[in-house]
């Protein structure tokens, strides 16, 4: 190999790495800036020059946000809705994915196509009729109402089916020979094999629901029923704008999902690539 060419290759490689690093820092800077601004007292936030670190770091904005807005209630709403949607979606999708993959029943192929087809349908086009439906059920301004239209994630069924498909059929047949009950087979044999996928999908399903905006925004009009993602944008101060306080509310709203990502980085990225149809 030509030595000069190798050297040139490495030189440019170094430049590209350095550029990537600088770019990454600039990319994440607005996040840093948001957090730092939320730690500044009111008078420091509006200073006409750039201060990358607060002169007198303070938590008063957080205390303000927690005590003067209903952020605590919104947190409870968000957790309830996100956990509810995740549990119901994962459970129903797993059962359905298992049935389509392992059992033979009439309508199986039709059901599978129906699920694949619904992948293409934009749910944001359905907002009018979701609203009518939920209103008719008397579920506006309720957890159940926020949850109902969010319970369908065809992609989760698709991922489960693909995973169950990889299990050899002999597995189930042997268990049937042993007189194991159908539900026993699912819960004692198949589910433990897929714990990894189940956790990964649960985490992203939680994050998707936590982050949902359009539907929770439409279905809730009462402040105390809002989820945190909607609440922090809907309640403005009557006495002018407190940027730092708004930012501290934003940090509080983003923290759970950011932490979920940082703790389960591998699982989250795995689930997201899986959900896009790329095998991990």
């Amino acid at each position, binding site marked *: 190999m030509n030595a000069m060419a190798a050297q040139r290759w490495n030189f440019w490689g170094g430049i*590209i790495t350095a550029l990537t690093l600088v770019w990454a820092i600039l990319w994440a800077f607005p996040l840093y800036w948001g957090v730092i601004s939320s730690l500044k007292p009111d008078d420091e936030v509006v200073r006409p020059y750039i201060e990358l670190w607060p002169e007198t770091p303070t938590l008063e904005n957080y205390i303000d946000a927690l005590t003067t807005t209903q952020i605590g209630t919104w947190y409870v709403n968000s957790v309830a809705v996100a956990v509810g949607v995740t549990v119901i979606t994962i459970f129903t999708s797993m059962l359905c994915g298992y049935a389509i993959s392992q059992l033979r*029943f009439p309508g199986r192929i039709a059901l599978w196509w129906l699920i694949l087809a619904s992948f293409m349908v934009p749910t944001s086009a359905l907002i*009018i*009729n979701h609203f009518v*439906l939920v209103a008719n059920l008397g579920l506006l301004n309720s957890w159940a109402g926020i949850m109902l239209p969010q319970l369908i994630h065809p992609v989760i069924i698709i991922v489960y089916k693909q995973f169950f498909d990889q299990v050899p059929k002999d597995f189930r047949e042997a268990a049937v020979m042993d007189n194991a009950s159908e539900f026993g087979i699912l819960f004692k044999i198949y589910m433990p094999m897929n714990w990894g996928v189940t956790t990964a999908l649960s985490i992203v399903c939680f994050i998707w629901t936590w982050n949902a*905006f359009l539907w929770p925004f439409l279905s809730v009009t009462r402040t105390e029923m809002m989820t*945190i993602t909607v609440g922090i944008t809907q309640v403005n101060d009557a006495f002018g704008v407190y940027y730092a306080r708004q930012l501290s509310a934003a940090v509080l*709203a983003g923290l759970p999902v950011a932490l979920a990502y940082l703790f389960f980085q591998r699982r989250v990225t795995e689930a*997201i690539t899986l959900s896009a149809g790329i095998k991990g």
Partner: protein
Amino acid sequence: MLRNSRTERLVALVLVAPFLAIYLLAFVYPTVQMFRISFTDAPLIGEGRWVGLDNYLRLDNDPMFRRAVWNTAYFVLMTVVPGTLIALLIALGVSRLKGRFQAIVLALFFLPYILPVSVVYLIWDWTLNFQFGIAMHVLDWLGIPRVPVFKSRVWFLPAVAGVTIWWTAGFSILLFLAGLRSIPAEIHEAAALDNSTRWTTFRRITWPLLWPVTSLVLTIQLILQLKIFDQVYLFSIGGRPNDNMVLVYYVFQKAFQQNQGGRAAAVAVTLFVLVVVVSVLQFQLLRFAERRRR
């Protein structure tokens, strides 16, 4: 065996039932209803009279609908291809890094994607704030006059497009990284031995091998951006929503602010058909490309 297959069917029914019930109630039924009320003059809640194709014919010379279509198209133009290119560049840079260092750099790029849209909105509204935003200090320093970005007709959509790229790039980066990882390292080593330049290696090897992922990213982005609403709504608070009208916003405005369920449904059906056609078209194209490759 007969008894067995009958139990199998019964079990299947029990397993499928919960999903199917939710699916029929919260998906199939609303979809059918959406088509039905688009032919009536129904308000948001309540029944209306049958008006045939009237709601659709009206769209033809509805200036607001036209604006919504154009703005959506403009937004798609500014986000889909540029966003995909930026994600590809970042993925190429990140894929060169190793181990822990790679994980940290990837996290910096990926974090925005994991955040709720309202947090993204608050952060950027603050960063680009006309009076106190740090971006404006930078403009002052560069000697460029300040711009009230989200109050300006010209800058609103480009700025929202930029924020959207920042917010959603993480997802595309992940897909590109997965694609890059599946290219065997030996291919690149062989290219380096052949004295081929970085650019030729990319053009002749990486890019063609990455094309399936690229088209996947483009499709997902296209469908996602056609449905733009959240960012436009949020950044328009206290601004001029009518100038920044996009399709889903128009559905929202007609149904929820003007109480015209039937006419809103006609817009929704248009969007619905648009997204389905794009998906089917893309699916066919992908299949075609795959067949040609073989």
